[in-house]
């Protein structure tokens, strides 16, 4: 095992990726800002929230998988660890990008942004005041949780947790690169155990806060888990595409065989099934219960043309990827895996649209073009950060004891 200090790996494709991300960020965000003046501030913040929620899938799932692979080990883990670190390291920036959402929710600031109403219905002044004509007892019942101050404070707590985990895991991992210090591996494992528990709780509540509360009367306890699993599926797909870009590097040629790629393919299969399970479980419980307080969410998503998305998701997010991914050949051939991954990422976008956008647009025809500009811009920004972070360290953590997983018989 190498214990020498490792230098960052130069990959021209990553430089190109950084430029692509930057261009996408510029185009998307300029269009979004233009939309603020053309379409209006209301649509700007709605699209921004949608884009932010969609983009957050990537750094969050990177952090989750990073901790998971520290705990489980495995060939796939060391293969993608540097990518996971690079993706999660964007979390502090993502925290700053939350500020517009906080301002659009807060009662003393939303008006100065040009909004007539706060971004969330529950933040509207008067909805929890029994003497107001806007009074809504359903929201008043949830008032201890859904207040602007607590909402913003929780977001700060989430980002503090995620940022500290990402920064600590990255700095210990780089320390291992420099010194070959074997104690780092143990420290990272210990932190990941605690971190993963905090992660699951915080992401669940973040999903509740950010998009489930757009319909403040509705609730689903599986909503946060659905977000985590979906994000995991999208991130695994993203990783398999990134591997096509770095496969030709010397360090990958030497250490990475077909096995870790096959493993990522297996994980994608499992997460495809898990996505289906989460989506179905949420639906069947509400459908079978048939209770007036939980069915409207699905009614909104099957009326006004939104029903058209349902068969697309059934086929495109379950049947097609599942039957393609159960083939061993498709999982082992990186080209096929990356094509399936592209389909999955497109479907992720459609699914998140179907989950979030009906809260703003009762009819699918009303969906604004800005809902495309925001995710393009924000994902582009994240991609730039990802590619730049990935080039700052060696592409594989060669000093890690888990590197043994990549070699014959090492996994016993």
């Amino acid at each position, binding site marked *: 095992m190498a214990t020498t200090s490792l230098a960052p790996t130069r990959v021209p494709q990553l430089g190109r990726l950084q430029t692509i991300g930057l261009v996408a960020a510029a185009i998307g965000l300029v269009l979004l800002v233009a939309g603020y003046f053309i379409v209006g501030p209301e649509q700007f913040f709605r699209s921004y929230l949608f884009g932010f929620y969609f983009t957050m899938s990537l750094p969050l799932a990177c952090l989750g998988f990073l901790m998971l692979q520290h705990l489980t080990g495995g060939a796939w883990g060391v293969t993608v660890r540097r990518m996971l670190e690079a993706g999660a390291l964007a979390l502090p920036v993502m925290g700053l990008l939350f500020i517009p959402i906080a301002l659009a929710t807060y009662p003393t600031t939303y008006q100065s942004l040009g909004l007539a109403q706060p971004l969330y219905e529950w933040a509207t002044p008067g909805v929890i005041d029994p003497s107001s004509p806007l009074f809504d007892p359903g929201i008043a019942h949830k008032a201890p949780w859904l207040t602007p101050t607590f909402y913003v404070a929780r977001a700060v707590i989430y980002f503090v947790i995620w940022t500290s985990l990402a920064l600590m895991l990255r700095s210990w991992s780089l320390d291992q690169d420099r010194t070959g210090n074997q104690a780092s591996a143990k420290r990272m494992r210990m932190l990941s155990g605690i971190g993963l528990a905090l992660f699951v709780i915080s992401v669940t509540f973040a999903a509740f806060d950010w998009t489930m509360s757009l319909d403040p009367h509705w609730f689903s306890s599986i909503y946060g888990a659905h977000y985590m699993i979906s994000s995991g599926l999208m991130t695994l797909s993203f990783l398999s595409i990134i591997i096509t870009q770095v496969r030709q590097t010397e360090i990958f040629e030497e250490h990475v065989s077909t096995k870790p790629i096959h493993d990522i393919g297996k994980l994608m299969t499992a997460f495809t099934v898990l996505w289906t399970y989460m989506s179905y479980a949420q639906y069947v419980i509400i459908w*079978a219960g048939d209770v007036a307080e939980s069915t409207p969410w699905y009614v909104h998503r099957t009326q006004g043309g939104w029903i058209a998305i349902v068969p697309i998701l059934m086929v495109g997010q379950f049947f097609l990827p599942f039957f393609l991914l*159960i083939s061993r050949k498709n999982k082992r051939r990186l080209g096929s895996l990356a094509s399936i991954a592209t389909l999955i990422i497109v479907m992720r976008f459609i699914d998140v649209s179907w989950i979030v956008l009906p809260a703003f647009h009762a009819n699918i025809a009303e969906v604004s073009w800005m809902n495309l500009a925001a995710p393009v811009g924000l994902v582009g920004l994240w991609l730039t950060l990802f590619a730049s972070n990935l080039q700052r360290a060696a592409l594989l953590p060669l000093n890690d004891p888990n590197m043994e997983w990549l070699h014959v*018989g090492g*996994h016993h």
Partner: protein
Amino acid sequence: MQASNEIYGVMAEFDSPNSLLEAAKKARAAGYRKMDAYSPFPIEEVCEEIMPEDTGVPRIVLICGLLGASSGFIFQAIGEFLDYPYNIGGRPIAITNWPAMIPITFECGILCAAFGAVFGMLALNGLPMPYHPVFNVPRFERASQDAFFLCIESVDPLFDRGRTSQFLRGLSPLQVSEVAH
């Protein structure tokens, strides 16, 4: 080419998983397909070299899974819509009731796929097998302790008693022996 069925095959013993893997790779590159490896623990990379392109098991599992899932669904449909239509909580007595039928459909699919995997595997590999010629090789019992074996079987079209032994000797094994039937 000599008559191949005089012996079961030729077996070489190796001292490490890496040399076994090297040998398996070379045997595959030389065109041998009917071979098997024996080691104290599973070595995935070796499996990839010695495994046939298509074991037949995946297809059996897929067919069993699909048959299981569809029969699970059809059984429920017959019961609910034809034989005993019954109003349960006002839910439809029609195909629009499908969400309620998914758990059983899924379970039946998994059950049949698992049966297909286990019994299909047993049918194709011939287990349980009370007698196997490879145990005639000296020291073979060490395959479950610390030795690594590669056996090229006489059913392989390229098999030749002399030349295959020669080939295996060239892979720097600890020993090469013929395996009697």
